[in-house]
């Protein structure tokens, strides 16, 4: 039963969405299924929060290596959740002044805004910015012209790196108009539009075919791996 009902729901949902694409009569069915999906996606946040608590509480309980990070995670999670859901420190909106919770949780100057502005924003921006350092280090150590393919990749990388800045214009700016196609900024566009697009389209078509076949296997109940290894 634990496997049959999810299989049934999956098959119905999948076939309704397929039918919705091919017939105007069934189009509204697909819209209803999409709304169900959005409701489920919202509920998935609760599941995600519960899972996060479970994993990190277990780490703390077992005193596994780095358990202190789990403490920080749980404190940050709970503090943000309580402040955000409770709209702590938020004033009622001008439209509905009689309702205490009518204000926006993102109100400027409020505790949730403070967390976003002074903790979340700089932390995530810092993480992303650090990529530049690691990419430079990796490029120095790993980007080697070991064979023809690597040489082609290296050459393309140089052209793109130069062509995406003013250096490209500066290096090949002297070329006459009839050779403008060889200017680095134009070569960059050609690489992206022709070679990159051709390769990506081939990959995308392959992926699409793979998704279609895998989806059919799931909808027909042939592939049940997504249900996990629980008992029937």
């Amino acid at each position, binding site marked *: 039963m634990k496997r049959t009902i999810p299989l049934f729901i999956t098959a119905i949902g999948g076939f309704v969405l397929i039918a919705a694409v091919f017939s105007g009569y069934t189009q509204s069915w697909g819209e209803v299924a999409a709304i169900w999906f959005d409701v489920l996606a919202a509920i998935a946040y609760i599941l995600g929060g519960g899972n996060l608590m479970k994993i990190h509480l277990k780490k703390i309980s077992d005193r596994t290596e780095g358990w202190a990070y789990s403490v920080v995670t749980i404190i940050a999670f709970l503090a943000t959740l309580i402040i955000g859901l409770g709209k702590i420190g938020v004033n009622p909106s001008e439209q509905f002044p009689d309702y205490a919770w009518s204000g926006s949780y993102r109100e400027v100057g409020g505790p949730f805004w403070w967390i976003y502005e002074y903790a979340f924003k700089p932390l995530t921006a810092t993480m992303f910015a650090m990529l530049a350092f690691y990419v*430079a280090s990796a490029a120095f150590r790993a980007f080697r012209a070991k064979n023809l393919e690597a040489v082609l990749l290296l050459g393309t990388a140089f052209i793109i790196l130069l062509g995406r800045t003013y250096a490209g214009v500066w290096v090949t700016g002297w070329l006459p108009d009839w050779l403008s196609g060889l200017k680095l900024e134009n070569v960059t566009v050609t690489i992206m539009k022709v070679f990159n697009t051709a390769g990506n389209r081939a990959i995308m078509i392959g992926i699409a075919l793979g998704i279609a076949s895998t989806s059919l296997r799931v909808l027909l109940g042939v592939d049940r791996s997504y249900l996990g290894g629980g008992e029937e």
Partner: protein
Amino acid sequence: MYEFFKTLDRRWIFLMMFLAVAVPILIIGATGRTFPEEPTSLARAVFHAIEDLPEGSKVLLSYDYDPASEGELSPMATMFAYHCAAKRHRMYFMALWPVGPQMVDDTIENVLKKDFPELEYGKDYVNLGYKSGYEGVIKVIITDFTELYTTDTRGTPWGTIPMCQEVSSVQDMDLLVNVSAGYAGTKEWVQYAVTPYPKLTMVAGCTGVQAPLLYPYIPQQLQGLLGAIKGAAEYEALVTECYGARMARRDAEGNPMVDDDGMYVIRGKYTEGIRRMGPQLVAHLLMILLIIVGNVIYFVERRKEGRR
């Protein structure tokens, strides 16, 4: 020297990268001068998609990114809002990412409220906020907004917002503008909005890593694309060329300021992309230099091993 590079500690590389980015930022900040931009056809396509629409057109702006990619995407998000406001289009802001509404708030605060105080919330622009469901949201609002958006972010009912009364679904929009940092983003808008409803027109701005994956959709499903800071800088060059007088700093008498070359001195927030191209140039040159040095070491070592 050879031995130094052969055993180069990665902390030296980190320091070099730090200087490669920091020094140009300081120089550009002090002098106010940076490199010129020559817009490509894709940036021009984005510009004309907004510019050629008649005044008062309905534009849906979906800001699907977060602070992690704000450095790369906020200049184009700012410029999209400015361009639409300058053309007096009606702007419907929304987000598929949980912190997208904050990105929208920043844009409204920095661009619309400061430089277009005459625009009225609800009549000229509206913030619809975030809904969970990623591409599921697109699939629903492509046929009916009110199935998901019963209010805006302020809690105002959909039916009482003047500019919302004129639209029932995404299909009523004259243009879709998407700023995307990944999933859900431009690819999903193309797949679930533009592909099934080909009458829709869409332009986008995305991160550098996403751009190669989106080229296959140009120009049928995606009319124009701004790739990373370079794309934003090109778009800024086009918008400032067109609206420079309005975007320029003002002197004591309120007249737009011009530099020695007779060019308008554009306010900093509208040249973020162009200014960030300076650090990008030096960082790219450093990367190329590091790759060349790394390969020289590799070939020298290989030759030495061959002799043995």
